[in-house]
């Protein structure tokens, strides 16, 4: 089994978009003037990005986004998708799971604690969710075919025809 061509391309584009927004949010975390977003009512980026929940263990959430998307971009490169190293695919899957867990926490924080929605953050959440969907559904195929492939490389011919 092989991975369809659209998955590496789609995940790479999503990860690059997420990286871009994370860079922007990181900049605005330190330079609040640059944040272009409503700052009153339900849609209130400033309220979200300056809330106590915008920092976890002393690290701004925007920077955590950077730490998430930089390796994600690398793991979503076509070369990484083609890699025969099982650890690459497991790392991508693990990162996707961590990402979706994080957005669930942040969604709870926005809806019930901060009571405001940040559109920029939401765009990152959507990207992270779709990354999770694509990676989670592709990983079983990739890991099983990669398993057979790597097994074949060492002990048997590649799996079934």
């Amino acid at each position, binding site marked *: 089994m092989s991975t369809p061509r659209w998955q590496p391309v789609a995940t790479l584009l999503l990860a690059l978009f997420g990286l871009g927004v994370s860079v922007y949010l990181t900049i605005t975390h330190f330079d609040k003037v640059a944040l272009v977003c409503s700052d009153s009512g339900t849609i209130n*980026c400033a309220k979200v990005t300056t809330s106590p929940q915008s920092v976890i263990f002393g690290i701004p959430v925007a920077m955590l986004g950077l730490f998430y998307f930089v390796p994600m971009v690398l793991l979503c490169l076509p070369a990484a998708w083609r890699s025969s190293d099982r650890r690459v695919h497991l790392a991508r899957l693990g990162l996707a799971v961590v990402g979706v867990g994080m957005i*669930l926490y942040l*969604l709870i924080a926005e*809806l019930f604690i901060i*009571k405001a929605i940040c559109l920029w953050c939401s765009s990152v959440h959507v990207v992270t969710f779709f990354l999770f969907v694509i990676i989670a559904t592709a990983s079983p195929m990739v*890991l099983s075919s990669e398993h057979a492939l790597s097994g074949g490389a060492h002990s048997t011919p590649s799996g079934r025809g």
Partner: protein
Amino acid sequence: MAPEQEKTKTGGNKPKPQNSQARAGQSAKDRSRAQSRAVSPKAPTGKSGRAKGAPSSGKGGNTPRPPAPGRPAPAQPQRRGISGAMMAWGAVGLVVVIVVVLVIVKVTTSSTNNSYTPTTAAPASVVHDVTNIPASVYNTVGINSPTVPVSPPTVLSNQPPMTLNGKSPAMLYYGAEYCPYCAAERWAMTAALSRFGTWSNLKITASSHTDVAAMTHTLSYRGATFTSPYLNFTGIEQFSTVPSSTSSSGFAILENPTAEEQAILAKYSSSKYNPNATTQGGISFPFVNINNQALISGASYNPTILAGQTWSQIASGLSDPTNPATQAIVATANYITAAICASTKGAPASVCQSPGVQAAARALKLG
């Protein structure tokens, strides 16, 4: 697994087929052999799946059966892939369900929490207490609020006096009834302005029941007028306390700034003048511009100091300079008064020369 694999491994020099094109060149025999080898020798799952060399048992006899013609042995990686795919889609479904539940809970909670405090005419006793704070209290407190820190206004330099409706000097307040920070600021602003003129039609209300510092009791400038020989004041309450799903703020719109007011707000809320600006072009409630000489963006003190107090309790407490809420309100009022005095050229002297206002003027470095 060794014997046959070793044979395969050592027997051929050709590179092993890695893709479907290469695999297309395999003979049926090769494909059949490959399929058979894909079965794990450690865990035979069927008659045809038993690996060569594995101990045989049961009625199958001692000789392993070859795979039935045309029926490939089940490949374990594929089975694992299928069950893995089911798990993956299950996980995706779980995430979707969690998100949907969160949104439903949020929407349900919001729709059932539509309570608000209506805006009504302020009781005369409340208006009296706020607009007649003893001079001794102003002077005793000065700018000292040890329990609740008070932020001074931002002083601007080299700005032309504000003209509103053809009158100058002028002061512009832009806020909303639902806003808890406006709720805190209005007590001080109302008191400060009462030293320069007369209020009429003041209202009472309370901030949003769902925001921070919920239900902070306060005054409202909706429909109120302020007359003064010294200063032209305009108060804009853009949103009410009534929740509204159609409004961008979540609360019903009361009034919007005029073009003249909007121009002033846009100019002085920018980061060029306002160090507390949080967004490009965005304005935080409350925003107070005192004759282009001083700005207040956001509350001067934390509104939670007013929590649990009624209008009457807050107002009557204003005669006690040891009351923490009073200290915060009066210190803020002295700062606002000093900024207004800088615009009215020190008039009236009885106010502008008072010790409390002078202390604020010195802190603001106003001549």
